[in-house]
């Protein structure tokens, strides 16, 4: 765990949204998924900045999709979580689980 790159809270949320959307993960879709699942409003710019940063780290990859009329003929930029991104997410999840262990009664979870 020591050499693992730490994910920020927003990075985790964005990565999880990309994972949930699968092959249909693009900026607007990610924004709507985050809003739907967490109720959190975030700008498309913030999502792109985060995804851009994670792409440089090798956590996600992107490709340009097809243009659609509701986008004024602009092409979509799709994202996909790579192996390194999944590893980083697993690491974050493990850290959170380890830290939460024993605190279930306080946090309202567990048995």
């Amino acid at each position: 765990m020591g050499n693992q790159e730490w994910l920020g809270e927003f990075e985790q949320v964005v990565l999880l949204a990309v994972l949930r959307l699968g092959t249909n993960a693009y900026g607007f879709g990610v924004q709507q998924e985050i809003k739907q699942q967490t109720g959190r409003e975030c700008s498309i710019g913030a999502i792109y900045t985060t995804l851009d940063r994670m792409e440089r780290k090798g956590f996600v990859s992107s490709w340009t999709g097809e243009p659609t009329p509701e986008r004024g003929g602009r092409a979509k930029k799709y994202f996909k979580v790579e192996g390194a991104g999944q590893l980083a997410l697993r690491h974050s999840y493990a850290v959170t689980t380890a830290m939460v262990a024993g605190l279930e009664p306080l946090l309202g979870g567990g048995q």
Partner: protein
Amino acid sequence: MKSDRIFRRQLQIVLALHANTDYAVAEQHRELSEQGSQQEFDAEFLASINPTSTAVWADRKIGVAHQVIQSIALTRKLIFHMSTLMLLGLGVRRTMIDADQPPHAAKFLLLLVPLRNREGIIGDLEEEYRTILVPEYGHPLAKFYYWWHVILTCVSSIAGAIGGLYRLVSRG
């Protein structure tokens, strides 16, 4: 704002057309009365030669002239009304097209966004405008929200670029 300006301009054109039509009709009436008096004079002259046929002939000529001028005036009025309807129709259509489009000026701000993401961001914002903002808030508020989201996007992109530059410099 833009559609208001176009509508005002169209209204000015229509009023100008209307004024010109009235002026032209008045001119023709004046010419007709002048021609009429000339015809009467000629008719009097001819009546002295052949009193029965010349008076009838002169009346007919004046009647035909009247009908021609009236038909010209009617045609002009018809053209005027048709052009008015066409201009109004175009104005309404233009307003509808403009309303579907996000504000063009806001797109210039997006030139601040890095080129590699620009296409995707502009498309996403446009999709958000059409599928979420307009149905939920209506056109005026949707335009306001679009501007707001464009500003937020630019701020995020600039902050991201500054952060990247800082990390680059701090690593040496």
